[in-house]
Each structure stands twice: as structure tokens, then as C-alpha cells.
């Protein structure tokens, strides 16, 4: 678990230990708003177990990925501002 991974969150490069979930990586950047609801309200992680769908982010261009269920990978491009 000591190996570190570099990825980009909202354009900012960060380094996280391997095994870190994307939701944690986004939180490490200080971001609490992961996405906008249909009506423009801020949304972020709630259940942490893949059920509530509130923590969705865009990963490598793929919309609506559950950040709490996805492990960080080297070079990953995460957008939590869409």
C-alpha cells in the first residue's frame, strides 16, 4: 500500500497511496461538491457503498462513475466539477 499513484482531479495533479478510492482522492483536493444535480444543486458522497449514486464523477471522459466504488489508477483524469 505504500506505492503512490499520480492522477489529476479537476486538472490538479495529486499523489495518493495505491488502493485509494477516487472519492477519497477528490476529497483530498478539498473538493466537497462532486457533481451538480439536475437542478444545479451541489452533490457529494453519502452512502459510500455504491447505492446512493450521489458521488458520481467523470473518469477519463466517462460520465456518472461512482467515485466511492472506483480505485485510483495511474494517470487517471477525474472531473468532479461537471
Amino acid at each position, binding site marked *: 500500500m505504500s506505492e503512490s499513484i499520480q492522477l489529476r482531479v479537476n486538472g490538479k495533479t495529486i499523489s495518493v497511496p495505491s488502493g485509494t478510492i477516487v472519492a477519497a482522492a477528490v476529497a483530498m483536493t478539498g473538493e466537497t461538491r462532486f457533481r451538480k444535480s*439536475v437542478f444545479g444543486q451541489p452533490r457529494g458522497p453519502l452512502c459510500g457503498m455504491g447505492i446512493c449514486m450521489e458521488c458520481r464523477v467523470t473518469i477519463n471522459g*466517462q*460520465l*456518472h462513475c461512482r467515485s466511492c466504488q472506483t480505485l485510483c489508477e495511474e494517470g487517471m483524469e477525474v472531473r468532479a466539477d461537471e
Partner: protein
Amino acid sequence: MSQAYDIVIVGAGIVGAACAAECARGGLKTLVLDRGPIGGGTTAAGMGHIVVMDDSEAQFALTHHSRQLWIELRPQLPDDVEYDSCGTLWVAADDEEMAEVQRKQKFYTERGVRVEVLDALGVKKAEPNLRADMAGGLRVVDDAVLYPPCAARFLLEQAKRHGAELRTGVAVRELLSEGGVLLADGSRISSGRSVSATGPWSPALTPGLPVRKRKGHLVITDRHPGFVHHQIVELGYLKSAHSLGKDSVAFNIQPRKTGQMLIGSSRQFDAEDSAVDPAILDRMLQRAIEYLPGLGKLSAIRTWTGHRAATPDKLPIIGPSVMSDRIWLATGHEGLGITTSLGTGRLLADLLLGRPTEIPAAPFAPVRFRNGGSHHE
């Protein structure tokens, strides 16, 4: 003897709603009854594809006329009806299906329907997420999609503006041959005529009617704006939709204004319950993924089912029943009821009011099944 109503329509789905709008507009004192909410039955399980079809001249006449009525109504439709003239793209997977594209193009062009033939490159440009080896396709430019329950509600509001009344949560037990209806609570409502617009449930009110329930599944995805641009239907659809035999699936996908995609289709006879059937759902989604490989990565957020009202000759049943000229029918629309609701309402009102009809009425007349429907199978 004076009647409480000129006409009582049973069923507040889109067909009953369209009939009510036309009857009320024609000056008939109209009452609509439904045991459930507006558009809560088959209407809620329709994709809302407004499509011109060419299975027979009669089917073409009704779908084309109906689509024209939708186009005329469009400026009045509220936003929540989500009318979107995205067009239909019939995709051909091979040369055999490409021959069908040519046949359809000729048929539609001869009848004044705007279509464009696309070659393999044209399909790729029109729908980049389709798999790369499509042979071509046919774009039917003026086809559209809408959200059926809100369309039904809008039509009922139109009916009410012309004096119609609506009562939901009222179950009907029987259509009376002397006119009017008997309700489940034992009370009667008198009327000159009644109309059954009860779709797959119509044989319960008019026994012997050759209408069978044909179950279908629908899936809606998360929002992925621009993933598809047309209602895309495989031409193999014709083979599966038209077989009256065993269970079938076909690729049929629709973009919604929200960016969501509605995915169909499945067809099952003798499946009366409304439970989602995982085996056929899996076949349906696998078929969709064969055409749109990227679909497999997206999330489905809801899955549900409904029943179509299938008839032996694949045409709806519109007009006076053979039991009584006081009992009329507007049912049996199978998978085309959202499109054909408006043409049905117009035709029914024309017949009721003795006006000339805008399309030939005979192919839809209930009398064609006087001796049952078996000889059509």
C-alpha cells in the same frame, strides 16, 4: 329518454384521451373513466415513438395521418410532453437489410414521406456510437419522440376545455348493450354510447375480442447527452416484431431530452404478470450492446414492463362493436398506440358524428373479427 352523457369512454390512456379530445371537440357530452390514474397502463410502458410504418397500406394510412396530427398539435404541446422531432434511423446490419432500406425508401417516397438513405459512412456520421460495420440505414426525417403520460394528460385537458369530464379511480364492470356502463360498485352511468379504450384489458369488457397481451420491457439509462441522436431501430426488428410466435427482442433505442436513453424492445405472449424477466431483459440489453458497444459501460437506472394490446392482423380495432351499436371500440394498438392515438380519436369521432373519415375506416372495423380472429393468424 335523456342520457347523462352522449359518450362514456373507458380508459384514460393515450387512446382514450385522444378519443375524448375529439369527441368533446365535436360537441359530444363526454365522460372518461379509468380505474387507475391517467396514462398509468400501457401508455406508461410505451416508448413514445411517433413513427410512420409500412407493414400494410392501412397501417401506413393510420400512422401517417396520426403523425401529421401530432405535427399540427406540436405548437400547443406543453414542455413536459418533451416532443422532439429527432427522426427515426432504421439501421441495416447487412446487405439483406439494405435491400429493405431500398424497399422502404421507395414505399415512403411514393407516398410523400421525407426519407434519406444513408450509406455506411452516412450512418457512422449520424450515429458515431453505433458499431462500425453497419451497411447503411434510412432516416425518416419527421418522425419524433414524446413522453406519453404527459401527452395523455394534455389531451384530457383539451377534452375538458370542451366540456368533457374525467373520473379516475373508477372501475367499470360492464359496457351495457342498451347504452352506458355498469360500474364495479354496482351503479350505472347512462350514455348514448360507450367506448372501450382499455387496450390489453379490453377482452374483459367485450368478451371474445381477439386482443392478446404482449409483454414488453423497457430500460432507462443515466444521462449521457449526445450518445445517440435519433430513435434508432434495427431493421431486423421487422422480423421479430411481426412474428406472432415465441419471445423476441430487437434493438430499439431513443434519446430523451434529459440525455437519458430509453432502451427496448421485447415481445412476449402468455406473460401476464408485470414482473421484470431477467432472462429476456438480458437478451434485450445484449442486443442493444451488439449495436452500441459503448452502452455496456453506462448505468441503467430503472427497468419496467407493460403489455401491448395485440390483434391477429396487427391493426387496431376502431368503431362499433358487433355486440351492440351502443358499444364502441378503440383498442388493439399493439406497439403503435402512442403514434396512432390521434388518428384513432379523429376516426372514432368522424364515425360517431357521421362525418366523412379522413382515412378508410373499413380496415379497422370491429366487424372484421365477427367470426373470431383465427383466420387471420
